């Protein structure tokens, strides 16, 4: 039975239960994630991290959240009243909405009703996530604009450019997955990965998605929109209290969503973590993919991706803006276009009833075309070795033939001032 049919006859009370369930899942995940991030980054920096409130400091984020809610809500004089209020809402709602199409598990029985652990299954499920992420950016951009001060505006501009560029890369990385699974519905993509997971079938797509998902969520090393050391707090500089909390919530929920989508598209969704192993090892425990177990597998895999987010933040320094754009437009987009072309060719070879001769000729033609094109690529201009380049790389370096000026001799103050021009001389006359 298809997931869409299973979900079609859900009674309204079951839908409400699922909605509340997903909301709680996301909020708890956010609270846990904040704690985990602070602890893990703490460990990476040789310090314990929060460990006072509750066991292992687990209740720290709850305490912080309560404190945040009771803080004073400030609106700057120059702020645009309505847009300033609207922005955090616009940023939080799509974040929550996007998770409705992520399949958390297969078929289960809830209160005597057969259903699937998923709120909605649309034939264009992947596009829902993309649409929600593109709407969520409005929150960031409007927040920066409505604050009426320069740093947030800069953050907003960066964020707008960043999301437009990385959404293209993300959309392209999804294309290959859709081609292999033959569907854009998230539940069908999971079912297509019963035996083969896409992260090793489509490694390049996976890598591109991985990079662009970090760029899309404004997380380190791509957190240019809120770079603390450059823009104070970026788009949320002027926000406080619950409005700030909404931005915070949206950022973490977005992280959970893109991680969940990565799990769904490349790591077999809710299938057991050993499911892709060959030689029958995937079927060692037949019951692992039924009932409520899938929820656990999905959560564990998503946690793995979330740990990757934390790891990146603890390891990598922030990209410079031009490097970031170069990576997006000159590396990720062209590479994924060529990769899609390759994947399409392979798919056609697999599917059509073609003779071996035809396939061989096609491959031969393809290789010839690639070789011919490679001749057209101009050679790199030879470097003029007589000129010592100082700024050829991304960072200015002193030239190897730099003559360090001799250290000035220690002079007596009187002798030095006597040689100096007018002002000091006149001074001496006084």
């Amino acid at each position, binding site marked *: 039975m298809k997931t869409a049919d299973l979900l079609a006859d859900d009674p309204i009370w079951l839908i409400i239960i699922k909605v509340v369930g997903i909301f709680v899942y996301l909020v708890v995940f956010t609270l846990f994630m904040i704690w985990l991030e602070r602890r893990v980054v703490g460990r990476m920096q040789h310090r314990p991290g929060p460990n006072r409130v509750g066991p292992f400091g687990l209740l720290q984020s709850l305490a912080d959240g309560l404190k945040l809610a009771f803080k004073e809500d400030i609106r700057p004089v120059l702020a*645009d009243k309505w*847009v300033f209020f609207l922005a955090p809402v616009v940023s939080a709602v799509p974040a929550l909405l996007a998770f409705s199409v992520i399949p958390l598990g297969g078929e289960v029985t809830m209160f005597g009703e057969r259903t699937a652990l998923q709120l909605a299954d*649309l*034939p*264009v499920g992947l*596009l*829902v996530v*993309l*649409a929600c992420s*593109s*709407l969520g*950016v*409005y929150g960031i*951009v*409007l927040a*920066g*604009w409505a604050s*009426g001060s320069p740093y947030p*505006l800069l953050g*907003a*501009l960066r964020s*707008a*450019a960043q*999301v*437009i560029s990385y*959404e293209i890369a993300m959309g392209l990385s999804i294309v290959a997955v859709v081609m292999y699974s*033959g569907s*854009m519905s998230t539940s069908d993509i999971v079912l297509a990965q019963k035996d083969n997971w896409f992260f090793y079938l489509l490694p390049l797509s996976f890598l591109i998605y991985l990079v662009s998902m970090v760029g899309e969520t404004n997380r380190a090393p791509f957190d240019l929109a809120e770079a603390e050391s450059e823009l104070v707090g970026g788009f949320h500089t002027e926000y406080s209290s619950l409005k700030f909390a909404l931005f915070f919530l949206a950022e973490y929920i977005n992280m959970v969503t893109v991680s969940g989508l990565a799990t769904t598209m490349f790591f077999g969704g809710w299938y057991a973590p050993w499911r892709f192993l060959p030689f029958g090892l995937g079927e060692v425990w037949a019951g692992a993919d039924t009932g409520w177990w899938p929820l656990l597998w999905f959560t564990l895999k998503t946690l793995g991706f979330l740990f990757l987010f934390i790891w990146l933040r603890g390891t990598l320094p922030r990209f410079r803006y031009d490097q970031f754009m170069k990576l997006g437009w000159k590396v990720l987009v062209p590479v994924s276009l060529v990769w899609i072309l390759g994947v399409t060719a392979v798919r056609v070879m697999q599917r059509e009833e073609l003779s071996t001769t035809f396939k061989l000729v096609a491959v031969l033609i393809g290789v010839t075309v690639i070789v011919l094109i490679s001749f057209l690529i101009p050679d790199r201009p030879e470097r003029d070795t007589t000129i010592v*380049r*100082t*700024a050829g790389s991304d960072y*200015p370096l*002193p*030239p190897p033939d*730099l003559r360090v*000026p001799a250290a*000035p001799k*220690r*002079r007596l*103050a*009187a002798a*030095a*001032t*006597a040689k*100096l*021009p*007018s*002002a*000091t001389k*006149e*001074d*001496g*006359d*006084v």
Partner: protein
Amino acid sequence: MSSVFVTQAVVDAGPVSMGEQVAFYVLGTGSLIGALGMLFARNAVHSALWLVLTMLNLGVLYMVGQAPFLGFVQIIVYTGAIMMLFLFVLMMVGRESSDSVVEVLRGQRLAAGVIGLGFAGLLVAALVRSLTQVKPIGLAQPNAQGGGNVANVGKLIFTDYLFAFELTSALLITAAIGAMVLAFNEKRRRPAYAKSLQQELVEARFQGNRPSPLPGPGVFATANSVATPALLPDGSVAPESLSEVIESTARERLDPDLLPEPDAHALTAPEQREGES
């Protein structure tokens, strides 16, 4: 807006469920409010936001009308990318800039009126035709055939409408290349404000005598005036830090505020100063 009318035709002609009617009236009202708001908003960014509301409503209307692919693509492309670019430009222009009421082009109002009337005539004609002659059949049957909505749309685009599709993409690529050519500046055609590029400045600085910036006022300086020289480690004045203009001006012509008093010499040992004077 034409999609609104098409749905209207469906409402009048065929059997329509209660839910569909409610959806139509809610979304139609929403998109109309958005369109009016866009026209009457004073601020350009507010106008853009009202337009976003209209586009979102249209997108949901497509989804209700059994075209989920079109609906979500509408949201991703129009709301997500194109309106975001609009906002981007508006923000660059500045938040205080509102529409100017001065008429720059002559006869603009007349032309706008004529074209507007023509457009209204076209819309009314289409509306009348859709209400009287077009028989709505819905998308339920084509969506159930083949591979569903998405697969059918893909098949149509890449078979029957391939030429139109490729033509559109050629147009877009031309526009993109044109924008790149216009925006790209080589070394020769460098904008007036950039006398030398940052990289050249870096190289010149490293090849010259002094890779580091000129010294500013000394750490122990008692004023931040340009007339206050920087001090070298031995307490003497660093010559590079002296302002050429001030040094070459006669003392009498200087504003008393600019006079180097108290100057860096206040920091040297008293016996040395005595020796000087």
